[in-house]
């Protein structure tokens, strides 16, 4: 019973602390939050790995491998997508440096803004009314 009590405590504490922390996340970041929590739920891979710590039939091996694959997909995919989204939320340079049609603003700190084929087009856009 002590085991259940400890686990119940872990659950409750993490739920409450998580609740308090996450209720401060601004609406702006709700989508990255969802993909982050998706990534975190990929931790179920730990249970998959534990399956492999004992004798297994072929069926179990297949099940375990499939489960692990999905969990890893969640983990890698989730963290990468979240990072991609968060990279979009940066302070942009002022309006004078409007970028190309359909390509958004110039991003000085990534490679996209410094590609050699871009500079000429940027100068055209600066001719604003």
């Amino acid at each position: 019973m002590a085991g259940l009590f400890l686990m119940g405590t872990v659950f409750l504490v993490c739920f409450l602390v998580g609740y308090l922390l996450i209720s401060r996340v601004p609406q702006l970041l709700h989508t990255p939050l969802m993909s982050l929590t998706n990534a975190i739920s990929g931790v179920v891979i730990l249970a998959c790995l534990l399956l492999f710590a004992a004798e297994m039939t072929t069926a179990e091996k297949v099940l375990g491998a499939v489960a692990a694959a999905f969990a890893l997909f969640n983990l890698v995919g989730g963290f990468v997508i979240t990072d991609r989204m968060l990279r979009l939320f940066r302070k942009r340079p002022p309006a004078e440096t409007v970028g190309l049609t359909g390509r958004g603003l110039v991003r000085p700190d990534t490679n996209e803004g410094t590609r050699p084929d871009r500079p000429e087009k940027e100068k055209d856009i600066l001719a604003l009314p």
Partner: protein
Amino acid sequence: MSIIVIDVLIIGGLLTGVALFRNTERARLGNSLCAVAVLAAVLVTVKEHSFREPTVLIFVLPIAATLAWYVATSVRMIQIPAMVAFQNGAGGMAAFLVSYAELARNVTLSPMSRSFGILSLVVGAITFSGSMIASGKLANILNQRPARVPRHGAVLGAVVVGTFLLGAGAIVETGPGALYVLASLLVVSLGLGVLLSMPVGGGDMPVWISFLNALSGLACAFCGIMTQNRPLIACGAMVGASGLILTLAMCRAMNRHLWKVLAGSRADRAPEITQAAEPQNHGDKCGPTSAPVEWHVDQPEGRDVLGHAVAAVRDANTIIIIPGYGTALAQAQFELVELASKLEAAGKDVAFAIHPVAGRMPGHMNVVLAEAGVDYAKLLELDPANSALENADLALVVGACDVVNPAAISTEGTPISGMPILLAQNAKQILVCNLDQKPGYSGVENPLYANPRTILLLGDAKSNLRRLLERLA
């Protein structure tokens, strides 16, 4: 059971990572911190247990990781809701597969572990099938309108009872029949997920996927209790909390209770949304309904609506842009951002008003606009936006319907009654760039279209905005 100290460090790392998510500038660090904590948990587990025959894993895992990397780096922001729902389902699948394997082979599990394993199986299966249906709807592969089987309520009730009975049976039965009970329980749970997900309409998706997110956390936590793995329990609890917060936030933002969402009470008036496979043709995600639109809008300026619109934009000094999901569908966000930048450079005050349920999932419009290059400081939430709208010269509505629908305030008994809206009508002038005047997901007519201060620039938003840009040059 692994060493408590290491567990505490890992869980602490995760919580800190989540805490950093409150701040936009530090959120990326929080994400990386969580990733590191999870990696640490995996390494600790690998180190602590010797694995027999890991060959299968060594083949499968790198493939899964590469596939995930490829998908994650190529997905577009407009596809994010379907992607997130899919991943949620994948997590649920992993949970129920693991539970099934553990339960099927291990008759020496304690009753407590067994019970939680069964809970994990059931919740994981519901999460999986529910999320897959949701993902299909969000990807516009499945029909958006609420679907039902004949006598849906009765069938659902029967399936729920069946789930309980089989679940109880699975806890008790540890003999040779156990496998059949488990397999039946799995099938029934999967069916339950499908039945729950079918009636949820396109407009209710933000609430539903938030709820599914919470469920996947629960499945995770139950799995953790079954395997007595503390980091797993901690993660499940956190994800559950996050899902719950988002579900409540979405319900509040739409003024709908969760059970109404599950019941799909918008069914009678849900629009028939045809494929958005040709998104360039839709300036607005509004579709046809059973009630024909009868608004007749006066256009006193004659047929030069565009000229009128251009004048309104030119004369306005404070402009609030209200983008809806239709913007993303028409892929008009780039033109919109270009227009905003141009107006700003001309000395006007421009900001974007983002309703909490704009888009298909919480915060969706924010990432769609960020992808198009908007400074996130210009994205206003509901209350600041409404304050700004009181003093605005022009409210530019693009591909949005319900979020600016004054009927939410004036009319009782509709799906959007009482829903907080963006008060576009408070601006001195309103320019609406929607595909047509048909109602949105709620099926409620929008009196904003008939407002004398409204200019209706109907048609494909992308081309309309392009024409505006050309005339303003």
